[in-house]
């Protein structure tokens, strides 16, 4: 089955919109609803992972170097990560 990125035609949709590939919600770009974005200040960050744990959209990932960051493809800009960060390392910036 095609991914949603390739946009199915009505003829290609499986009757009832049944989804055969698990996890294809990943292909939906949901970050474009955002009106502000979280921006990290790694000088302050202590790599505690609270932002990662609190993000309601699982949009924050751990980088190879151990710091955390948002994937803007999915981040909705809710600001919860900035609110929860104990070190005030995240600030919300207007899009």
């Amino acid at each position, binding site marked *: 089955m095609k991914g949603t990125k390739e*946009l199915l035609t009505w003829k290609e*949709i499986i*009757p*009832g*919109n*049944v*989804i*055969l590939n698990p996890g294809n*919600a990943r292909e939906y770009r949901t970050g474009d609803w955002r009106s502000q974005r979280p921006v990290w200040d790694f000088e302050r960050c202590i790599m505690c992972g609270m932002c990662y744990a609190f993000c309601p959209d699982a949009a924050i990932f751990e980088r190879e170097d151990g710091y955390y960051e948002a994937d803007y493809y999915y981040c909705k800009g809710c600001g919860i990560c900035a609110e929860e960060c104990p070190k005030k390392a995240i600030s919300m910036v207007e899009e």
Partner: protein
Amino acid sequence: MGKRRGLEVSVGAAEAVAMADVDVIAAYPITPQTHIVEHLAELVNNGELDAEFVPVESEHSALSVCIGASAAGARTFTCTSAQGLALMNEIVYIASSMRLPIVMILANRSLSAPLSIWNDHSDAMSVRDTGWIQVFAQNGQEVFDHIFFAYRVGEDPKVSLPVMIHVDGFIVTHVIEPVEFWEKEQVERYLPPFKPISRLDPERPVTMGAFAMPQLFTETKVAQDMATTQSMEVILSAWEEIYKITSRRYRPVEAYRTEGAETIFVVQGSFGETLSVAVDELRAKGEPVGLVMPRLWRPFPFELFRSAVKGAKNLIVIDRAISFGGQGGPLAIELRSSLFGLPAPPRVINFICGLASRDVTVEDFKNIYERAVDGSKAPVFQEDFQFYGVRS
């Protein structure tokens, strides 16, 4: 053919559901649907029917159970009326959008308020646009035959849609009629086992009923609409097969004595049988009248309807539901729009009557005819519609 048995139509309907080898029945009792479900409960309880009977706490749950079961590949049945259908409404749309071939009998009853347990088509019309294939059955035999029809059409992989059978509450459900049963082998041959296009299976997991972004929503709905429209072919062949088995011929638009008719009555459901008597009596007096009954309500057979009324000057459309603030009853509105743009279309004269089982007799139909058409056969009636038999 099987035996002819004299029984209550509801019991006959339940027997047909049992013969269709249903796997899961979920329903909540509501008048006048009750006897159908009670008889099914009895058959399951007595061990005569190997099916799961789920006594739910509401109609919303009844159809939800059917959705889950149907998604898992079970043949399912539910049955309701009026308020029950209204409570179920959210799920009625979901069943068709998920393309699950659930079969429902709607024992037609007026929607409250005021509270009424009696029969009209206000509940039927409230679900017109829910995406179910919908047929009207006029008597016990038609209900019985259409249970097999409904599963055969709905479960066809080209269709994969739920099917609703409209049956007038009390007027049909509660009468005792002779019903010719089918032989077990005939049902088995007519109705192959249900093979869903997709189903819930732990070995091969899929997601059903998920969220879709606006980029997919319209495409999904177009696919659903195409399936509904294109189900016509499957519907016609399912009726053709019934004819071969039973010699009973069902058509999307039934016509009675329409040859040379200048005025044609159009009705749905049990009014048809009474009206055929009125048509006979009017014909005996030399009046050029006929009767047309759209049996298939969705998908609506536009072409067949137009050709069934071709040549008529007047259509007397009788509705048993109101579109408040609209241009008549839902049937008249539909038919007017289907005739629009034709060269010299017949005039649509619309009456609303028979609400909450108020009796409409042969005499009433003859009065309606007189009121609609005067001696010179020109319509004497100017409004878009009239209520018939209302005290003023």
